């Protein structure tokens, strides 16, 4: 009676659904990193002099740094001289004014992913700043946002049009010296999004960027900066899928958030990059630095992430709670299957009085997946009445996978309250059988149980994103039982 197992095996052999490559000619530099390459990147983008200097400082810092090895992941050594640091689609240097000017093949790619830009504009009211390889090629709804003084544009453009704002905040949350990957990103970042919400403005729509890695051997070094001025609100969505690849691709992004007094930033991510094949070959290396600063009193930063892709994930979206009464949140679902390894979590640094942080982490391991939660709750000496709540749940599917939890706590103050809850559960055969006996397939059973497990995180996502996330999880879980 092994019909169930056979069925599951068949599903396990299914190809990565989004594994296809768009054939757009790329204008790319040869592989390798040097001062000259950085100068070239900077000049191609006609950047101000201070930007180049900053990049060069970062580069020299990076040269002195060592790749971190403390994470619970293993991967072959990366040859940084074998990476292409710049590539741009061969299109008009002016950049397109509307979707009509976008390479039809790119639009086709988005259609395959089920995210047709045209429809999104009309239906969802989502402004899309699509990053394709290293240069943004589609930007929408700019005018509408502009009416309220909201700036939402590619970083390269922001450097031209709002250099003072960028200069004031770039690197103010994640300095170039922060860590190995952040330094590398600071030296060579290609593009990304810049977003500024003026005082008192509630951004009328979800801001969304679809990142996509495409050209072979092109490391992606996105740089995102979001500044929410006093009393403003913004919800930002980041989602991505990737084509199938034979080679490991490095992705080292940096995201910086700044929330001033009474401002709120919600940052949601769905990450579905190619995880590699059954042996783990070809997947994306996702080494990301994401951090937010609650600078002003009563400000709030909330990270929500659904991580299902990548061969290796190294990612700790964090909050520095400086303003009194400010609040940091981290809601995470991380799924590892096949040979995927994820070392993810958050750091909540409490500096201001009455600061709060809330952490809900749901790790799901299937196949040979390894899932690590690593979290730091730090309460400084002056952070009177700071509170942290951490809930960290792991779910195991099968017996070859692993879940690990590394909570770190530093308390410098006796008025602090910290609460930590952790659980590990396993999807049992009896649960799956129970569902099957009621008419559901084993797959539907697993996805239902996993979605139930992740509910608390999904409810933090904007509606359409939550639906996407559930589908994504279901697709990714196909064939994970057995």
């Amino acid at each position, binding site marked *: *009676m092994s019909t*169930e197992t056979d069925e599951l095996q068949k599903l396990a052999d299914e190809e990565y659904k989004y594994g296809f490559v768009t054939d757009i000619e790329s204008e790319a530099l040869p592989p390798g990193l040097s001062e000259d390459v950085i100068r070239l990147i900077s000049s191609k983008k006609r950047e101000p002099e201070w930007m180049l200097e900053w990049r060069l400082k970062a580069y020299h810092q990076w040269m002195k740094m060592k790749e971190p090895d403390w994470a619970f992941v293993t991967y072959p050594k990366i040859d940084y001289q074998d990476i292409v640091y710049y590539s741009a689609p061969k299109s008009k240097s002016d950049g397109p004014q509307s979707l009509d000017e976008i390479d039809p093949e790119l639009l086709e790619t988005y259609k395959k992913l089920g995210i047709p830009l045209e429809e999104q504009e009309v239906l969802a009211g989502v402004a899309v700043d699509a990053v394709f390889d290293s240069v943004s090629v589609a930007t929408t709804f700019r005018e509408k946002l502009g009416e309220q003084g909201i700036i939402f544009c590619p970083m390269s453009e922001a450097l031209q049009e709002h250099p003072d704002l960028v200069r004031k905040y770039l690197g103010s949350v994640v300095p170039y010296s922060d860590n190995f990957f952040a330094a590398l990103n600071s030296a060579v970042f290609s593009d990304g999004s810049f977003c500024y919400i003026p005082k008192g403005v509630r951004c009328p729509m979800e801001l969304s960027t679809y990142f996509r890695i495409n050209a072979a051997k092109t490391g992606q070094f996105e740089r995102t900066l979001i500044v929410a001025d006093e009393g403003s609100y913004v919800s930002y969505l980041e989602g991505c899928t990737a084509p199938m690849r034979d080679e490991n691709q490095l992705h080292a992004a940096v995201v910086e958030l700044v929330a001033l007094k009474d401002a709120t930033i919600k940052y949601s991510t769905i990450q579905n990059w190619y995880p590699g094949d059954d042996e783990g070959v070809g997947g994306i290396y996702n080494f990301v630095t994401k951090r937010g600063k609650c600078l002003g009193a009563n400000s709030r930063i909330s990270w929500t992430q659904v991580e299902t892709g990548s061969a290796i994930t190294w990612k700790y979206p964090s909050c520095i709670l400086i303003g009194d009464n400010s609040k940091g949140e981290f809601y995470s679902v991380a799924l590892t299957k096949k040979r995927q390894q994820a070392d993810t979590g958050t750091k909540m640094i409490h500096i201001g009085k009455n600061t709060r942080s809330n952490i809900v982490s749901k790790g799901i391991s299937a196949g040979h997946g390894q899932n690590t939660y690593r979290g730091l709750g730090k309460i400084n000496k002056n952070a009177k009445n700071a509170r942290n709540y951490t809930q960290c749940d792991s779910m195991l599917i099968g017996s070859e996978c692993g879940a690990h939890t590394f909570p770190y706590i530093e308390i410098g103050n006796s008025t602090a309250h910290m609460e930590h809850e952790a659980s590990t*559960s396993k999807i049992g055969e009896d649960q799956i059988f129970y569902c*099957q*006996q*009621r008419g*559901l397939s084993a797959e539907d059973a697993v996805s*239902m149980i996993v979605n*139930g497990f992740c509910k608390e995180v999904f409810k933090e996502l904007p509606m359409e994103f939550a639906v996407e996330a559930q589908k994504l999880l279901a697709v990714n879980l196909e064939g994970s039982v057995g």
Partner: protein
Amino acid sequence: MLEIRNLHVSAEGKEILRGIDLKVNPGEVHSIMGPNGSGKSTLAHVLSGREGYEITAGEVDFKGQDLLDMKPEERAREGVFLAFQYPVEIPGVNNTYFLRAALNAIRRHRGEEELDAMEFLRLARSKAKLLKMDQSLLSRPVNEGFSGGEKKRNEIFQMSILEPTLGILDETDSGLDIDALKIVSEGVNALRSPERAFVIVTHYQRLLEYIVPDFVHVLDRGRIVKSGDKTLALELEKRGYSWLREEAGEAQPVA
């Protein structure tokens, strides 16, 4: 509807069912009784397709199909329902959501239209009322934290919504209080129809006062050692099981 022929089943190398023959026609209610460990739940599990058992001989025909060749969910969609002796908890999954997904999977299989959330809720509420089930159980995670009796009642609630053609009840009565036993039995009786059959596993004749069986079978050490009508249950209640072994020992030479 259901015909079991010479069914032999082992688990972990141990033979549990040792040649079962049983024929169930539409409209009939069969009760299976027997000492602990005699193989009653094993029979129920094998009929519903649970993994972990080895079928070493025999066959099972269900509505003209080879039941043992079907996946558990296919059996369910074809109308086999098992009310579990130990219902399973599924944390995080809402009871109503779960049951609607199940019903719609079955309806799709039958080529019927799916029910939307509103239609389903109406159906669920009316059935819950029939079974005097606390409405709050509808919105809780499946069986999680349910009391023993609530779990059993929830099984019959599910059955009344899924409307199977063959209902297998494995000790649904154990854990139910006196009133609940009556209500749940009424729920089962309401489902009795000329097209539908039930196999009811129980230790107590009390249940059979409410759900009156057409046949009573005694399972002992993996074999049906005696069959009769409802009076057999009464006799078992009085005399226990040991006399059956003695009787069997007299009737046939010890192997």
